[in-house]
């Protein structure tokens, strides 16, 4: 509660961490790759029958399911990522005094995500992403003849599964709201031969997921999500198998604990809401999930802009300013976000840089291009952050667009004539400052003040997406 109470100024932007709470294996902004492992344990506590009635598992019957997944994600396009998940699955069943445990490699999944727009980049257009995936039947289906009588060695469904989906998400300060719809179709499978052969195709499976996440200033995020899966009737040997449709509700509470910019732990508890008649033809249970992952940052710096806008901007000091301070030898322009934890994390370093280099003819300005930018907000933020330089107001985000600023803490170093000498992040840190960070801006300042060409003229900026509309 103390965190909530003190979050008025430096609230974390939900897009930085909230999405991870909803989708563990997803790359966040600026991440180019990740690898992770997750451990899942669940218990089947009952089942919904073919009329939707829920009944608890009978005494003496139990099922525990375990899964350990290794997964990796790779950014293959600026807005596109691909995910591979390899599961190891185990089941323990007890029925009528007989217990059996088995397991093995499950069905491998390959997923694709493409973000057409980013959550938080606009107050009007939400983040919109297309999803696709395929699950390959690398596991063992329950009717494999090598399995024991309780089929605990079953680790897969025995068919390919193709997924397609659409995800919509938007941030509201520290809140993230998302909605996802996915449709899955399984390929037909034939079991047996001759007169008893069964050729079955399961019905199309639709899943709707709604989630809300809150990101604290520490970037710890909590999320609550509800999903509902509906599956149509199967067909067996060409005929509709009436009464084989599914329904299954799931409620999930999840959270993200960032240990550093690259490392994060995630956890979730989930439950299949055992209320008649929410489910149909499905076992139901509850379980927990723990995830640890290591993310790697992007390595492609943005293209430097060619020209600096010449207009004037109102500053937090009430005066009109140009982006390039003609009275200074060099000017640092930093794109500011009032809500981004990466911005807040760098305030101390920015103050120190401005103080150190002021005597050497380097001027600093921050510029607020986000929706809601105003002189009053700039004044309040500059005072609270104890900036020694002004925050300029960029109504409509005109300057940000013309300078290619997509993310907070994007920084330009320009000379008196407006030539861009450096464009990119302040340093290699995101929101967890490290002693061994690479100080891109400081190094560039050192180069230009020494009369050398800038050794690293560009680097990725790791702040939140700027909400420009």
């Amino acid at each position, binding site marked *: 509660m103390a965190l909530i109470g003190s979050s008025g100024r430096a609230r974390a932007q939900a897009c930085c961490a909230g999405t991870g709470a909803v989708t563990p294996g997803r790359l966040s902004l600026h991440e180019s790759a990740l690898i992770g492992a997750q451990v899942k344990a669940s218990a089947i506590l009952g089942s919904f029958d073919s009329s939707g009635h829920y009944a608890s598992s009978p005494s003496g019957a139990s099922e525990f399911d375990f899964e350990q997944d290794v997964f990796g994600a790779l950014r293959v396009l600026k807005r596109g990522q691909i995910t591979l998940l390899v599961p190891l699955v185990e089941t323990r069943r007890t*029925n009528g005094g007989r217990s059996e445990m088995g397991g093995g490699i499950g069905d491998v999944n390959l997923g694709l995500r493409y973000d057409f727009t980013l959550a938080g980049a606009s107050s009007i257009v939400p983040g919109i992403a297309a999803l696709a995936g395929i699950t390959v039947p690398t596991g063992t289906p329950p009717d494999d003849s090598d399995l024991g009588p309780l089929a605990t060695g079953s680790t897969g469904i025995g068919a390919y599964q193709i997924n397609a989906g659409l995800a919509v998400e938007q941030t509201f300060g520290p809140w993230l709201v998302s909605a996802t719809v996915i449709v899955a179709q399984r390929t037909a499978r034939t079991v047996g031969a001759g007169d008893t052969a069964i050729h079955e195709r399961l019905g199309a499976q639709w899943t709707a997921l709604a989630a809300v996440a809150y990101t604290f200033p520490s970037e710890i995020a909590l999320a609550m999500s509800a999903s509902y899966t509906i599956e149509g009737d199967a067909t067996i040997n060409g005929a509709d198998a009436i009464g084989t449709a599914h329904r299954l509700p799931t409620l999930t509470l999840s959270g993200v604990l960032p240990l550093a910019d690259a490392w994060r732990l995630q956890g979730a508890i989930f439950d299949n809401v055992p209320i008649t008649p929410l489910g149909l033809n499905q076992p139901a249970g509850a379980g927990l999930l723990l995830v640890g992952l290591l993310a790697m940052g992007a390595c492609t710096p943005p293209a430097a802009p060619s020209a600096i806008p010449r207009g004037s901007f109102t500053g937090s000091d009430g005066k009109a300013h140009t982006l390039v301070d003609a009275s200074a030898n060099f000017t640092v322009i930093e794109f500011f976000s009032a809500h981004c934890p990466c911005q807040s994390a760098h305030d101390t370093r920015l103050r120190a840089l401005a103080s150190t280099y002021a005597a050497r003819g380097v001027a600093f300005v921050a510029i607020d291009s986000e929706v809601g930018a105003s002189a009053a907000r700039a004044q309040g933020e500059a005072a609270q952050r104890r900036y020694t330089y002004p925050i300029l107001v960029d109504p409509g985000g005109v300057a940000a667009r013309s300078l290619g600023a997509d993310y907070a803490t994007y920084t330009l170093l320009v000379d008196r004539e407006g030539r861009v000498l450096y464009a990119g992040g302040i340093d290699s840190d995101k929101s967890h400052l490290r002693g061994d960070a690479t100080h891109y801006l400081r190094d560039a300042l050192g180069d230009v003040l020494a009369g050398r060409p800038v050794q690293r003229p560009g680097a990725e900026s790791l702040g939140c997406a700027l909400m420009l509309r």
Partner: protein
Amino acid sequence: MPFRTLLLTLLIAGCGSASDPSTGDPTFPADPLQTLTSDSGKLRVEVRTAPQPPTRGGQTVQLVVTDATTGAPQTGLALEVVPWMPAMGHGGSVVPSVSENPPGTYVLTNVELFMPGTWQLRTSISRDAALDHVVPSFQIP
């Protein structure tokens, strides 16, 4: 069978009868769980289970097959049975064994219904190349 397991089985079976897999000699109730007509309409099949109603795990199933018109027991049939979960798209790993005793009464052993849901016993019935089908279906809690 340990006393606790026997007691549990009796409780689950309720008023029906219980089977004891260790003896291989199940007792079926007098009243059938289901009475079905084969796909061709020529056969009548009474379905009993032990325990009845069936529970999660191993079952023994009795199919009493008679002529749908005359009620005469149908002897010498060849039955092939595939347990199947139509809503899940899979069956089980164990193929039930079929024996006929007494004539016209077929007993299926090793019927493993290992998870909750609707299970079918997709049964093909043949004699002298003539083929028929019947599909008893059970809801396993």
